[in-house]
């Protein structure tokens, strides 16, 4: 194939940038009080001073914790070659301790050109790890543990201790739970110097007799070698995609951790407005000194600066960032916008961003309602009516009864046989607009199992309204509004007043 045109090349470059976290977070690294600098300082000082250390990186999902950490480690590897080896674990993959030790052993073997045995038992692996740690300590080599998705490690340990405490019945139950929960979280995330561990975890250590989890062996290794250089880094926490939950979870951890470790916790805050602006410029402006034709790049940049200054563009970004302000979330949006770029003209336009916004912010339930056939809508409306009547639980048969009564009172033309309705009902189940209230009950046939609506009345209301005003030929399909909907809307409105 011939030469790519510059637009395609530019698009390729932009997309490559958006998929490369180390590029994205680069601009945040230069200022002295950025997370990058703090993190780098802490780690490098613990390398040079040969002491154990631990840091907890906190922040909502997608705020670049891993990316920054990897930047730091990459730079440190250049700065202190031969002195660092990095072990990466992820709570998603290695929350099972057996797996975790195997992975640690595998990575250690890879780092030190040793032969890794797949058949090694859990015990072998943990012994191996301790031995390796000791050796590394003697050789003044630092091992950095990266625990991605840290809360998943903690969860398991916490659960373990929960049931341990039930068994032990030694102390007041609640107290034990909270205390052990904290302790185990901290314990797994921090491999600490044994002296300070002993004081903080006195109570924990009394229970230490048969803990077979990650925690256990970390303690073990600490007991043995007090001069061991040993840091466990990066804790991430799971964040559901709602802002409320983020704050909540953050606080939960903070409260527990603050008392002892406030100085070793890095908070990743969502980017400020200025940060976003900088980020946009950093990502979407083309370099003028690359293989791209210079006049093209200059023109591209000029056009993009125009867009950046546009109030409407700021509005788009603001609406988007309202739902979630993490950096990765922004990247997702930019990616969609950039891939909308017109390759013929070769420039970004405001339209690209607008269409990306509408493409990425979807209302799945509303879409589902719009996609339903009339009969399926009837069933939804019947269910809604049953709910309004405060019928606590209902199943297909009671829906059919309601359907018949609608038909009787409004004389609609859409009256179908029961098995046709049942099929429509099954469609709704597949679409997950409705679901069974009980998860099992295989014994019963579908007609008798109680169901519930998965759409709020507001969504249904909206869906019906937009269904009727749907422009592409649906209007005349429902040439007269089915009266059932009418009454439903009225009753819905009544509910809202």
């Amino acid at each position, binding site marked *: 194939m011939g030469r790519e045109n510059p637009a395609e090349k530019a698009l390729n470059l932009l997309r490559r940038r958006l998929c490369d976290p180390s590029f994205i977070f680069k601009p945040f690294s230069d200022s002295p009080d950025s997370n990058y600098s703090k993190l780098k300082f802490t780690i490098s000082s613990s390398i040079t001073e040969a002491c154990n250390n631990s840091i907890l990186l906190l922040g909502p999902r997608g705020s670049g914790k891993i990316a920054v950490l990897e930047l730091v480690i990459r730079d440190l590897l250049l700065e202190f070659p031969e002195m660092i080896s990095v072990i990466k674990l992820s709570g998603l993959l290695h929350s099972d301790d057996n797996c975790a030790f195997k992975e640690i052993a595998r990575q250690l073997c890879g780092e030190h050109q040793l032969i890794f045995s797949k058949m090694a038992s859990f015990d072998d692996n943990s012994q191996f790890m301790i031995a390796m740690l000791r050796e590394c300590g003697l050789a003044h080599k630092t091992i950095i543990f990266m625990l991605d998705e840290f809360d998943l490690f903690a969860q398991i340990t916490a659960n373990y201790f929960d049931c341990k405490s039930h068994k032990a019945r030694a102390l007041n139950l609640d107290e034990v739970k909270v205390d052990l929960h904290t302790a185990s979280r901290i314990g797994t995330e921090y491999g600490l110097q044994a002296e300070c561990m002993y004081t903080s975890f006195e109570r924990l250590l009394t229970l230490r007799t048969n803990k077979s989890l990650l925690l256990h062996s970390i303690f073990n290794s600490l007991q043995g070698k007090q001069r061991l250089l040993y840091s466990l880094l990066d804790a991430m926490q799971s964040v559901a995609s709602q802002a409320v939950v983020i704050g909540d979870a953050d606080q939960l951890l903070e409260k527990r951790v603050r008392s002892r470790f406030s100085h070793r916790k890095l908070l990743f805050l969502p980017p400020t407005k200025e940060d976003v602006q900088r980020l946009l410029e950093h990502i979407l402006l083309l370099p003028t000194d690359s293989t791209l034709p210079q006049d093209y790049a200059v023109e591209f940049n000029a056009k993009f600066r125009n867009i950046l200054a546009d109030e409407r563009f700021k509005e788009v970004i603001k609406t988007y960032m309202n739902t979630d302000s993490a950096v990765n979330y922004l990247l997702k949006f930019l990616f969609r916008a950039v891939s909308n770029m017109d390759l013929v003209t070769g420039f970004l336009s405001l339209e690209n961003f607008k269409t990306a916004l509408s493409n990425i912010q*979807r209302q799945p339930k509303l879409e589902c309602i719009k996609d339903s056939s009339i009969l399926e809508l009837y069933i939804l409306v019947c269910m809604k009516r049953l709910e309004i009547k405060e019928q606590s639980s209902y199943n297909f048969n009671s829906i059919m009864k309601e359907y018949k009564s609608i038909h009787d009172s409004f004389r609609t033309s859409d009256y179908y046989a029961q098995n046709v309705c049942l099929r429509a009902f099954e469609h709704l189940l597949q679409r997950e607009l409705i679901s069974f209230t009980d998860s099992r009950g295989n014994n019963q046939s579908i007609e008798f199992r109680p169901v519930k609506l998965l759409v709020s009345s507001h969504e249904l209301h909206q869906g019906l309204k937009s269904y009727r005003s749907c422009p592409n030929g649906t209007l005349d399909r429902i040439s007269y509004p089915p009266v059932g909907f009418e009454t439903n809307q009225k009753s819905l409105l009544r509910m809202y007043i």
Partner: protein
Amino acid sequence: MSKEESPQVTRRTTRHTSAAVSKTAVEMKASDTNPPTLNDLLYGEEEKPVSLDDVLSTFPGRKIQILELMRILGPLNCPVIPLFIYGDSSTGKTSIILQIFRHLNRPFVYASCLTCYNPRILFESVLNQLLLHRKNDANGYSSAKRCERPSDFVNFLREALVSVTTSLQGNSGKSGSKKSDRRANGNMFYLIFDNLELVREWDKSSTILPFLFNLYDILKMPEVGLIFISSTSPDTYYSSMGYVEPTPLYFPDYSEDDLRQIFMRYQENKKLYSSFLDVVLRPFVRITRRVDELSTAFSQLYKKYCEPLSDPGVVPNEEMKRRLFSNLQPHVASSMNDIFRVSSQPSTEVGATKEAKRKSGTKKSGGSEDIDQLDLHMSTSAKYLLLSAFLASRNPATLDASLFDSTGGSDNRKRKRKPSEKSLEQKEAAEQELLMKGPGTFPLERLLAIFQCITSVAEGSLEEEEEGNDWLGVQDGDDSLMSDVLLQLSSLCNANFIVKGASCPLEGSTRYRSTISEDMALKVARSLKFPLSKYIYRR
């Protein structure tokens, strides 16, 4: 028939073969002992590139989605963030993505969570395709790697992907060396996971799902693209574990116009079919908008529509349209009410009844409509047993005595009082309860007792009617009825007409429940000439 279904058929075949397309291609060649190459990871026949226009014209009504998909996948060698394609079933998600890859000529691995029904099979299937591993006699049909855990999978996957992408880069470096060879374009590699919604039902879904969604971040390989296909929207995947959501792409259901275009494709007589669609499409779309369901209904109806015509190639005029319409009118209404029946060949009557019977057996709910032409291939005793099970499920146990005592069930109707306000309320509540609870359960003893009662009653009625002319035969039949009644019961249970429930905690005996509908019970009774309605207790 095949005319109307042809779009459907092609869709089906593509989907069916798609899962194994690279594999079947490989297996075909396996006999030729060709070593597998990277080109096996491409889709479609060799030497037949598909243009974008072809793709667009193959899928009417999907233009927006196809173009959007092309934009997201981007030009050659562009990295891509994870993509989540969703939409109702039969909206063309899988076929479109596969055709697009055929058009782009880029390598990919396709794994459907429908055929790979647990994590291990899913992982191994992906790895097998990546490592160009064929299951055959020589290796005892084993997988390339044994891997059950996500952690192992990631290690293997990374290894395999690195080797694949480096060889792809090598490929593109010396591109054009052999012009006849069909090569993969670019050095991007794609993993496609289809039917993702099924993963939610898996045992380990709570770990596998976040793992799959986070796979892109875990791998950290920009030259690997991930595509998820699901029939449910992203909001149905929420779990306690968060993840950065993949970028969504929605395939909406087809609109009426789209459906018209789809059905008009591959029609020989477009004018005639269009006038047919004028009649049927609108009412049917009110019920369902799924292509697969509509096409089965239409294929039958179109045959009916064409029946009066001598020449199928005729171009209809207004008058003829009207005539055809009035001819079709009665069929439309009836067809609408059993639109979803599995189409059975009307010519082969036996096949039809079998089909219907099997359907009513496996699917209790669908049975009622098919009974009309259903010739019940059941022994008399099985029919009686079925009826008694039905009665036992519907009637309250306390009424058995009055219904089945020697004087017959009819006299207790006389004792009806005028319903008071309160009893009406109670009645309503009871009705509600019946609707909710469904058929009741009963122990075996009660079933046998009712069975005995109704067989003796039937015997009596037969005597009356037929003046005892085959009294002996009935008597004999009765004897044999009792002998293998338990056997009959178990075969009815197997056919799902009667469901064996959990044992009662108080009595410890197994309880049964009849699942047949009242219509069906009445029909069975009619075939026996048994006055069933006399015995059903009405509230």
